[in-house]
């Protein structure tokens, strides 16, 4: 047994995107123990939602929980509020919500992939992925009116309709992106330099993933077929638009990259099906009811299962709102995943977890 060193990473570190602190215990380059602290950015959003804002305004507040999965949070909250006021959403609004969620998933996965490439030391691939991602940022801007804060789902439906010119723009960009995605899959699968940092780094077995309650692409890369889109049909008709689950086998960074890339393919198929079969109906169901009772909603955010609980008391302001972000479920597995990896590949492993800590700490 060699001498052990403790190396802290974070909360401010060049390879970290978010305020996250890891303390690695290493033995000759190899990580033997890890401790994590993730709650650096507590903002008290849950409390604000239950005191300062009316229940219709909360869907805009929760959109600010996360910059990347903003639409997942707004949609999840809108669904939970719709359950409380007991209204049904028009079918067109459901399809438009799915469209924006999938566009958002593509840009979020591309961001994660680009950061894995950057943290593995492949700067050119980082630039390339970010360049391709820009097309989807512009699409989201054309659909929702803003690059980051979509504010698309509101209680009862969606805020804006889809213009025919935007539909054409989406189809054009998707056709263009298909070749770019093939190129990315080729690089992520076959590049030798990238494989040195990615293959067998940060691996987690299927049993461990099950035991540690992992969600999202992290779990699917380990071979665990967990996806909310596969399980629930009542709120958004995922099966109707051609959703299929993507899983990997090895559970390492390489498998996570490939799961994300293939999920982008699935998302593109869903978007095309939504555009082909967009039903005609109103956009919003109007109601004057106040929220009453309790409700729970699960939705598949880009990082995994997002959970919303809300309780109303027949007033404008909610009594309780609980948000459980996907990264929160993954923390214990994140710590476990480092075991046995080299310290040099730790940045790539952190990026491949795709941690979203502003979601987690709210």
């Amino acid at each position: 047994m060699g001498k052990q060193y403790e190396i802290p990473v974070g909360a401010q570190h060049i390879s970290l995107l978010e305020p996250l602190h890891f303390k690695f215990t290493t033995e000759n380059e190899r990580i033997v123990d890890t401790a994590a602290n993730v709650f650096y950015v507590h903002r008290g959003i849950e409390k604000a939602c239950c005191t300062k804002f009316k229940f219709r305004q909360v869907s805009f507040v929760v959109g600010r929980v996360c910059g990347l999965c903003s639409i997942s949070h707004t949609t999840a909250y809108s669904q939970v509020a719709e359950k409380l006021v007991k209204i049904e959403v028009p079918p067109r609004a459901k399809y438009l919500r799915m469209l924006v969620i999938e566009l958002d998933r593509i840009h979020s996965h591309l961001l994660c992939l680009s950061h894995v490439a950057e943290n593995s030391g492949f700067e050119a691939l980082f630039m390339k992925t970010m360049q391709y991602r820009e097309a989807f940022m512009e699409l989201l801007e054309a659909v929702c009116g803003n690059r980051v804060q979509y504010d698309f789902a509101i209680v009862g439906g969606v805020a804006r309709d889809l213009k025919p010119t935007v539909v054409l723009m989406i189809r054009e960009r998707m056709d263009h992106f298909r070749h770019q995605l093939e190129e990315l899959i080729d690089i992520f699968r076959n590049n030798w330099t990238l494989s040195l940092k990615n293959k067998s780094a940060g691996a987690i077995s299927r049993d461990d993933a099950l035991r540690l309650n992992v969600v999202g692409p992290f779990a699917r890369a380990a071979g665990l077929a967990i996806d909310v889109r596969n399980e629930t049909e009542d709120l958004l008709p995922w099966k109707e638009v051609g959703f299929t689950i993507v899983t990997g086998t090895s559970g390492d960074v390489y498998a996570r990259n490939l799961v994300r890339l293939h999920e982008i393919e699935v998302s593109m198929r869903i978007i095309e099906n939504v555009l082909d079969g967009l039903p005609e109906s109103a956009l919003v169901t109007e109601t004057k009811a106040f929220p009453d009772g309790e409700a729970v909603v699960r939705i598949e955010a880009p990082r995994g299962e997002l959970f919303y609980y809300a309780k109303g008391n027949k007033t404008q302001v909610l009594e309780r709102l609980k948000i459980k972000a996907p990264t929160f479920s993954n923390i214990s597995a994140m710590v476990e995943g480092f075991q046995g990896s080299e310290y040099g590949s730790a940045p790539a492993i952190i990026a491949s977890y795709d941690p979203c800590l502003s979601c987690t700490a709210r």
Partner: protein
Amino acid sequence: MKTFFKALGNLFKRPVTVKYPFEKTFIPEDYRGVIGFNESLCIWCHRCESACPPGAIVFSQDMEGKQRYYYNRAVCIFCEECIRSCPKEGALYNTHQPAQCAVKEDNINNGWNILFEEALQSRAAYAAEKKRLAAEKAASAKLQAEKAAQVSKE
């Protein structure tokens, strides 16, 4: 070899980045931008004020009853909730223009909070004044009615 030719080809490609402050970036036609206000159409129902999530709209009222609309582009989150809640079409509209940056002179935090409080107080003061005048009027009307009743009795 393939990589070599690709690298050579890249030498003659245009850059993908945009020189942002000098060149315009992509902004769609229906961009969610600054909210415009048409005073002649407004019916002063204050629905936009109560719907606005961050509180970027407030109405003040002077003692003659004249109302004034205040809007803070730096507090606004451009969610268009005010436009959706507006019962009069065209009174509030989206200009589709991005907001200017807030500068120190705008004093957006303290200045706006003070203004917001003062606007609410001015409306409360006007309502109280109106109530007092109405009560006075009612009292004088009652007095006159009593006098008239006395006269008719005599």
